[in-house]
């Protein structure tokens, strides 16, 4: 079971709600994967447009926990204000905190991120910070009051998988008791399985599912990969070695005197 703040969850796959071919496909993907947490956002809405109202009805019908984000925020002030607005609209203290520092890579501004996390944790938000694999930043986020960390695998939407294995493994080893969710950059289910095999607690995926030719089938594939990875981690994988070790017993081999 996955423990995120006060919530206990069965599914270790969190799903983003953007970029699907249609709302119906998003709903079907969430259901096919048995997802319990879906990320959402806030955007400007013209009066009478009501797109947001329709989207919010759809999400509520799915009966999932929502994780509002502060996507697009480039400063502490913007992120904190967006967090307050999200808490009112979505009725949750959960917050995926993003403070973007660079537009080409959508790399988190970790300085702004830790500052915004400190403010929001003190106000009672349960902050899920979208961060890098940097160990010292992780320390600062925990000191700010975060109880979950979401390091990136690779830049958002890049589909490259776990880019910096060494640092991600170091992060996992350094914080054995902190729930760590790989957020962003995964492309295929094997990336998700790998994250879970390495001991990460969950993954958050959006583009890899939403932009697949068949998002519903891909969501189900990610769900199975996450389950397989978690089971493999629990089963205790063997250590890699440099030379062969025969799997068939060598005692009693024929034709050898």
């Amino acid at each position, binding site marked *: 079971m996955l423990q995120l703040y006060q919530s206990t969850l069965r599914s270790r796959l969190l799903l983003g709600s953007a970029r699907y071919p249609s709302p119906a496909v998003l709903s079907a993907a969430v259901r096919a994967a048995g997802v319990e947490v879906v990320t959402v956002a806030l955007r400007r809405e013209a*009066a009478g447009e009501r797109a*947001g109202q329709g989207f919010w009805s759809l999400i509520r019908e799915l009966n999932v926990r929502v994780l509002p984000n502060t996507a697009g925020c480039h400063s502490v002030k913007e992120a904190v204000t967006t967090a307050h607005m999200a808490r*009112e609209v979505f009725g949750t203290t959960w917050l995926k905190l993003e403070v973007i520092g660079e537009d080409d890579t959508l790399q988190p501004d970790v300085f702004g991120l830790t500052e915004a996390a400190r403010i929001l944790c003190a106000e009672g938000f349960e902050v899920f910070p979208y961060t890098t694999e940097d160990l010292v930043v992780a320390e600062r986020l925990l000191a700010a009051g975060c109880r979950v960390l979401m390091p990136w695998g690779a830049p958002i939407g890049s589909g490259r998988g776990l880019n910096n294995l060494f640092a991600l493994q170091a992060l996992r080893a350094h914080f054995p008791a902190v729930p760590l969710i790989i957020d962003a950059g995964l492309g295929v289910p094997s990336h998700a399985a790998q994250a879970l095999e390495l001991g990460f607690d969950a993954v958050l995926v959006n583009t890899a599912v939403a932009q697949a030719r068949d998002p519903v089938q891909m969501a189900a594939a990610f769900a199975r990969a996450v389950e397989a990875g978690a089971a493999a981690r629990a089963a205790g994988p063997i250590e890699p070695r440099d030379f062969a070790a025969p799997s068939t017993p060598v005692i009693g081999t024929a034709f050898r005197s």
Partner: protein
Amino acid sequence: MKIQVNGAWRELRAGELAGALEELGYGDSVVSTAVNGEFVARPARARTALSDGDRLEVLAPMQGG
């Protein structure tokens, strides 16, 4: 009074936020508001005065990753 609503200038009669939202046609929509970058909670809308040149943000739920 001229107010910037989600980045576009609008001419409004209402002098406070609740009335402005009504006048703009948001009615009972699930939206959250900020004036000049500061969050204004729903219960505070009726007593939040608007002035010429204010910047109003009206945000609604949307797909996000």
